[in-house]
């Protein structure tokens, strides 16, 4: 069964003066199955971030529908949306979005605290995740004391701790060096193998080549998609770059 179903999604921005209309998303449709690892690729301005914001219920679409677990996002009342986001979705951002006033541990606890969980339960949930992500030793430290890779792993832990149905990652490797990038992508694969559904937006070919399926967005529509099948990362990497070349040199539609 599909976890996420996006149907004919449309988002139009009106410029400040109200005269020009910009279509960020024209007609986007796709679905994500349980346990899938999907990467969405596209250039800057292709509508990736808009799409992600709508999927995260941070923004409302102009038209079309988004169903998460069969639940229509636009039907959720404003007051419930934060709780919905907290319970069903996990986020990993490019710039980590950790709060520098919290220790690593408290940063991870944040969504649980918002959900009203007890300290004991939070502790119980944290232990296996921290061990899996290799951050047990830095739990008491503060964000400014740890490396970029460790910060991103903290963010992943924060996303995982609510056991979300779907993890949304926005350029998760964007601010990491190549070693930390490899670490993180390996981590994502591991998480995915354990059954976690991941949707990642990126324009890094390397990051996308770890996914099971790659969607390409151009000018507000899903332009193409690739399935990994039985291919290795390197083979998928090659196919992705070929597709991107095609996209940028303006191949036929």
């Amino acid at each position, binding site marked *: 069964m599909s976890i996420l179903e996006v149907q004919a999604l449309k988002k139009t921005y009106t410029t400040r003066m109200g005269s020009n209309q910009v279509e960020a998303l024209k007609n986007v449709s796709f679905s994500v199955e349980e346990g899938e690892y999907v990467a969405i690729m596209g250039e800057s301005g292709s509508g990736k971030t808009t799409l992600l914001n709508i999927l995260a219920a941070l923004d409302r679409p102009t038209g079309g529908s988004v169903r998460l677990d069969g639940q229509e996002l636009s039907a959720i009342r404003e007051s419930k949306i*934060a709780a919905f986001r907290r319970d069903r979705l996990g986020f990993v951002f490019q710039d980590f979005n950790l709060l520098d006033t919290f220790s690593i541990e408290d940063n991870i606890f*944040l969504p649980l605290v918002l959900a*009203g969980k007890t300290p004991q339960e939070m502790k119980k949930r944290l232990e296996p995740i921290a061990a899996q992500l290799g951050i047990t030793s830095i739990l008491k430290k503060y964000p400014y004391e740890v490396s970029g890779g460790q910060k991103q792993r903290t963010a992943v832990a924060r996303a995982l701790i609510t056991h979300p149905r779907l993890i949304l990652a926005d350029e998760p490797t964007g601010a990491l060096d190549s070693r930390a990038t490899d670490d993180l992508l390996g981590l994502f694969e591991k998480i995915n193998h354990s059954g976690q559904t991941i949707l990642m937006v990126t324009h890094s070919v390397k990051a996308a080549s770890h996914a099971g399926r790659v969607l390409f967005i151009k000018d507000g529509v899903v332009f193409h998609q690739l399935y990994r099948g039985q291919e290795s990362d390197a083979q998928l990497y090659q196919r992705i770059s070929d597709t991107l070349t095609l996209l940028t040199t303006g191949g036929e539609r």
Partner: protein
Amino acid sequence: MKIGFYPKLAWMGIRRNSQLYTPYLLTCIGMVTMSYIVSFLANSPLLDPLSGSSVMKEFLRIGFVVFSVFALIFLFYTNSFLIRRRKKELGLYNILGMGKKHLALVLLWEAAMMGAISLAGGVFCGITLSKFSELVLMNLLKEDIDFTLRLSGTAITQTLGLFAVIFGLIFLNTLRQLHVTSPVALLHSEDFGEKPPKTNWPMALAGALLLAAAYWIAVSIQDPVSAILWFMIAVIMVIIATYLLFIAGSVAICRILQKNKRYYYKTNHFVSVSSMIYRMRRNGAGLASICILCTMVLVTLSSTTCLYLGAEDSLRQSYPRNIYLDLSVERDQEDAVTIQQQIQQYAQKVVEQAGTNLFNELSYSAVSYRGKLENGELTLQNSLYNSADYNQLYDVMVVPLEDYNRLMGTQETLEPGQALLYLGKDSNYTGESIQLEDGESLQIVKKVDGFADYQMDRALMRPVIYLFVEDFDAVTEPMLSVLDENGAPMTDLHWYYGFDLEASEQQQIGIYQQIQDWVLENGYSAKCQSVAEERSVFYGLYGGLFFLGILFGIVFIFAAVLIIYYKQVSEGYEDRARFEILRKVGMTGREIRQSINSQVLTVFFLPLLTAGVHLGFAFPLIYKVLSVFGLINLSLLLAVTVGCYLIFALFYILVYRITSGSYYKIVSGPKETL
């Protein structure tokens, strides 16, 4: 073209940062205005003919000095906020190719423009408001007013001079800051990582202990005059303790709360507590300053208000009747009674001639006597200070029972050798009998609750005992016969005479002068007093204090408000990113607003509440100090203190609303782009 470049750049800088510059500019204008007004009044010719003018002007002059120092410190402080926010922009200019010399030039233009606007605006407002403040002052002094607008050249020069120096110093400080930072540091000066604050337990504990000790001293001081040293120590301890507690104590409390997992991991505590640690580390000192400022304002305002409002009370205590006369008669003067009658008759005549009548007459004889009270035995003391034990000194007033009965409307009777006792303030004599010099021991039959004339009791700092006796002459004889080393009697027989008048102050003074002159002409040794005459001196003192209290209250309030405003605004920029993250992670808008609210509320009202507690503990002390000034109206003081606090709080809340409004706007606004 080139000439206009720097001024233009400077002007643009001011305009673009108007959110920061407008409050600063308003403060500068306000400070200049205040300075002009104080200086104007200190030099006002209108005050000269008043009897209280020298006291008043001295206050104003001292006020001007205090004000200057305050203005310097305060403007320095607020300006540092501005520089911190501007550094990024200046760094950009620097990277775009402007040398530090050019930047200095831009800053010079900026300083010049700001200075010119503040001075022009301030002096203009000052001139406009000076008449108003003059009217307020004259009204407070209970003097007549006129409506001519005056300009004071001295005041303008003084003000311009003062602020030229202050602005100059501030500009030099800006240059110094610019000089010591590199362009990259200028660009990034706003966002450097912050270490989490460590709890400084010794500091927090020391603060708590100091505060407790200071409160204990404040509450246990009995006599504020002899304990003035302890009083100063207590004040200094409170100040230090406030700083320690705000800086270290607040972090310690947050840490303790964090340790308590059940409390800490709750939605509405989680974010607030952890942010408060950082907030308090950064703002502890500032909030402590605000707290002390508030306390000072409140103490000053409430005590000066109370003194002023209670002025009539204390006047009445010190001068029990409109006209009051103290005649001393030598022991062997036979015609004492005749003189008394003559004076009474003459007073009656003068009052009748003035076309009015006197009432509330007060007249009694007494022998007043200062001595050392030991084992129920009172010995005359020649001088106050050669006495070994100051605490045993008492003033005794021996009054005929006949006079007591007449004045109090009672029918007490006594045998010879018996006495009624009235204890004035601070005296707590518990003996059953009392012996005056080598006279017969007087048995105390009864303690009474009061006497018609408290004048002695109020005027003296020492405890006073009143004794009412049947055989006045026999009892006082041993006292009157004590001679000093020159062979003159050490104490005299006094006759006190006073009455109220249904007359204007002018008339009262006229009557008083006539009686005074007549008494002197006849060679009587009498001291005559008129409330009307004393009132203007009294109001010069109390009204002046009150006026300065209000003036400084306003200045301090503005200072406190502005500090808080800048704190909130600069924090708003930092908090924006934080709340954006919280929103993404799944905090609802309502929860975010609640969290903001609780933090802003804490930052805002912690100083006010602490100031309230300080004021509460200072209250007994204020009461005792004021009673030295003759003000013993506890309920008035209580009402005024609470009233001042409430008015202050009201004003504070108003500012809070404005400030938190602009804070929300910043926090919920789009990310800053530069």
